């Protein structure tokens, strides 16, 4: 046991008022790092506010001579993405329709898997888990052809349920990993006590474990929302023409083989498309940190 000390003065970690050399060093490091991280954002912003003539001159770090938000307006509602020239806003609600179920299902299944793997440990389940984790290393594109055939066989190809199923399959490894490690950090005694009280598999899960999982649920939600919102190839192949996510329009704007490239519109479109994940970070950033703080990642 730790010896008990009788502190003469409060030793809570308060913010030191004077700027010691150490403090200066801390701020210096953080500010330098912040500059490194902000550099691309600076270039993206300034490029999006410049005209194409100015961009052609190639002065990457210069501020725009006559800043204008024309590129932003174009990116949102008028840039061409094919026959239609309606900008990236077209796919916004499709992305939402895909992201919501593709966050709920994988998290639910991941939580269930993690719970079963860490507390109940059925025979051989760990082997299954290991194989699942191996699956996380296969590049997504390699699995597309067989998945197309499988989904076509069950009639889900090119549909909203189809793309949700595909997202569930691909995010299962990481979601299971997150929840399994989290539950391994919860004392076994709690679980044993609940079993003695007569709790069964589902009852313990719903009434005891889930309420305790709020922190990791938030973490998983953030990672999943970001991942699915920014997904391109899966939505393109499996969602069908009516449900194409926003990333497809974004890619049509940015990528071209032999067409002209409007860099200012490209940058604006990228920032517009990433607005949703950024908002999610901003709003739940505090929970994100606090979430894992409650022992989410303890092995």
């Amino acid at each position, binding site marked *: 046991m730790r010896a008990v000390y009788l502190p003469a003065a409060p030793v809570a970690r308060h913010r030191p008022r004077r700027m010691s050399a150490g403090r200066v060093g801390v701020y210096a490091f953080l500010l330098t790092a912040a500059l490194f991280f902000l550099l691309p954002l600076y270039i993206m912003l300034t490029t999006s506010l410049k005209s194409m003539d100015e961009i052609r001159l190639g002065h990457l770090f210069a501020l725009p001579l006559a800043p204008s938000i024309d590129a932003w307006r174009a990116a949102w509602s008028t840039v061409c993405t094919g026959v239609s020239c309606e900008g990236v806003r077209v796919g916004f609600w499709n992305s939402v329709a895909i992201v919501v179920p593709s966050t709920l299902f994988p998290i639910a299944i991941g939580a269930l898997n993690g719970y079963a793997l860490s507390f109940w440990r059925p025979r051989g389940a760990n082997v299954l888990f290991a194989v699942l984790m191996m699956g996380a290393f296969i590049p997504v594109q390699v699995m597309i052809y067989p998945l197309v055939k499988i989904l*076509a066989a069950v009639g889900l190809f090119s549909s909203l349920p189809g793309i949700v199923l595909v997202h569930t399959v691909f995010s299962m490894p990481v979601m299971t990993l997150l929840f399994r490690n989290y539950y391994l950090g919860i004392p076994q005694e709690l679980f044993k006590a609940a079993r003695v009280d007569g709790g069964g598999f589902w009852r313990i899960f719903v009434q005891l474990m889930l309420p305790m999982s709020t922190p990791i649920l938030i973490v998983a939600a953030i990672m999943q929302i970001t991942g699915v919102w920014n997904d391109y190839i899966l939505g393109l192949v499996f969602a069908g023409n009516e449900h194409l996510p926003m990333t497809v329009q974004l890619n049509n704007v940015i990528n071209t083989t032999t067409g002209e490239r*409007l860099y200012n519109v490209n940058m604006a479109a990228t920032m517009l498309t990433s607005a949703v994940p950024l908002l999610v970070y901003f709003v739940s950033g505090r929970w994100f940190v606090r979430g894992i703080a409650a022992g989410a990642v303890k092995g």
Partner: protein
Amino acid sequence: MLRTACRKTLLALAAGLLALPALAQNGPRAEVIHWWTSGGESAAVKTLADAYRAQGGQWVDMAVALGEQARAVAINRIVGGNPPTAAQFNTSKQFLDIVDQGLLNNLDDVAARDGWDKFLPETVLNVIKVKGHYYAVPVNIHMPAWIWYSKAAFKKAGIAAEPKTMDELFAALDKLKAAGLVPLAHGCQPWQDNTVFTAVLTNVGGRELYLKVLRDRDRNAIQSDAFKNVLLTFKRLQGYVDKGSPGRNWNDATAMLITGKAGVQIMGDWAKGEFSLAGQVAGKDYGCIAGFGANAPYIIQGDVLVFPKTDKPDALKAQKLLASVVTTPAAQVAFNSKKGSIPIRTDVDASKMDVCAQQGITIMKDKARHLGNGEIYLTPDQNGALADILTAYWNRNMPVEKVQKDIASALKN
């Protein structure tokens, strides 16, 4: 009396209003997968959609950027049992595997009725005709190896006349270098390196060598001195690019010509789109050279539409209507004016197209100058392997004999 008249008018109006949406919905529905997504390309594909709609059809667009992605999506949709009505491919061997699997409808009746054999160039016919059946409709003809030059840069370097031979080109490049400009604007990406190589092979090697190497894959031709000379000229051009060329997008290289920083670029005719966007005019601000000499080959490359197999009568109707609409002279001129390419038929009114396109159409009238792009003769795999070797040679110093050997073995299979 008035009441009946009023009622009759109302009924007629109602009937008319009801008929309108029915009219729009009854036309054959065509879902088309393509990769025409940028501004100019979008305007071009819109002309096709408009022409199709004018014939009563419904165009449902599915644009997917980048050829590889779009073709992969099309193939996956076909495999998954939800095929599009039409899909864009290139004039190449890309769709041969799909034909082999029996997954495409043929267009023999449309070809016979519209007389494709009469106005399509033989090179194109050889690509779209597989085992005697027509499996694709050509949409345009691009030339990937035009030589562009900035008139402002030439003026600054004191180059009075357009180069007429390869030697004169090198002389011009030297003058540009002396004037402190970037002689050859280039983006070092494998396909761009391949483009430069194509230009050198046609202008230095000539038509015969080109066909022997790329179509016949003749080992002796590849190991010959003539081909060695081609490779050495290719490498010589590398000395005229600036240090920042690796990875650069072709548009950024064209931008160097537009701003007068560089003199020459070897690029396809789609480059005109960038020039137009900057307000520059062909013949006035920039020049275009199709090749050196009166018999310089004109490289043919292009886009086609293929039609996945289906039995549904509505879809079949849509496919045949689309295939027919695409080859009409009016649609051809409208599409290609916006795209930067030239029509697939020379019996069109080209007066409204720019000078470079008119030049191209005139050259196309001479059948002896038709030559297919590498991908017409090589499989995608062989073409890719060749590009790997060429780009390695461009970037590294290696003995030219090794390059010849590598190319011979890459094209062997």
